[in-house]
């Protein structure tokens, strides 16, 4: 019983250490958090701008290629129709 009381007393008198303080190096790091976050934000912004530029350029090139291929197709189509008409005329003439 006496032992139990001693243990209880010891537990109640227990205190957690405050001698473990953050190192000055950690404090410096904490103080520079806003700069670090700004730097990260700038990097993110730069990355976003670069990606946007790349995607705009890509879309522009893609559109040009698409437009060119479409116009080529149209040319082909008009040429083939002209050619077929021409053939038909020739057939009638031969007849």
């Amino acid at each position, binding site marked *: 019983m006496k*032992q*139990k009381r001693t*243990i*209880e007393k*010891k*537990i*109640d*008198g*227990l*205190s*957690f*250490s*405050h*001698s*473990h*303080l*953050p*190192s000055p190096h*950690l*404090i410096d*790091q*904490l*103080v520079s*958090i*806003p700069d670090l*976050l700004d730097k990260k934000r700038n990097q993110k912004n730069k990355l976003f701008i670069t990606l946007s530029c790349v995607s705009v350029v890509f879309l522009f090139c893609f559109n040009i290629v698409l437009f060119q291929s479409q116009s080529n197709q149209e040319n082909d189509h008009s040429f083939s129709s002209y050619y077929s008409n021409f053939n038909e005329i020739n057939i009638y003439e031969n007849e």
Partner: protein
Amino acid sequence: MEDKDLLLLLIKGDRKAFEQIVHMHSNMVYSICFNLIQNKKDAEDLTQDVFTTIYTSISSFKQNSKLSTWIYRIAVNKSHDHLRMINRKKRIPLFKAKPIESVFNLQTHSSSPIELLEEKEFYDYVFSALNNLPQNQRIAFTLSKMEGFSYNEISDQMNLSLSAVESLIFRARKKIIEELNKYDNNK
């Protein structure tokens, strides 16, 4: 400077105000993290994480409590999450447990080396009993043993009612004493 002024400056992104908050609260935030996690390196990382959260989400602070209570609540929550992550990792044998460092103030009144050894052994047992407690009990008990925290403050930090905190600390204390009695009987 008062909390309100400091808060206004901080919301505006004032570096000096943030620096002042770091100097005012870093010791306590680090102490909370270290006492709950019991590892220096992790406590440092968590302290950084806490202050990053403070800087980025100061605008979400609703001012229902004191600024310090809000800051310490972030520290407790982050430590709680970290402990949960460690417990999850413990189940996977690939991860090695990190070394645990003593968080107690060894108030030694012992004169002889044998008494000193016994006292160290006693603290080791308290330590292992504490680590076997459920997380909420462990956090409440640890905070109650840190200087300056009243039950009211602990209930604010843990977002629990006062009676819940009292019951957690009571149960934690009981379990630790039971464990130590077992150890004493086996001796």
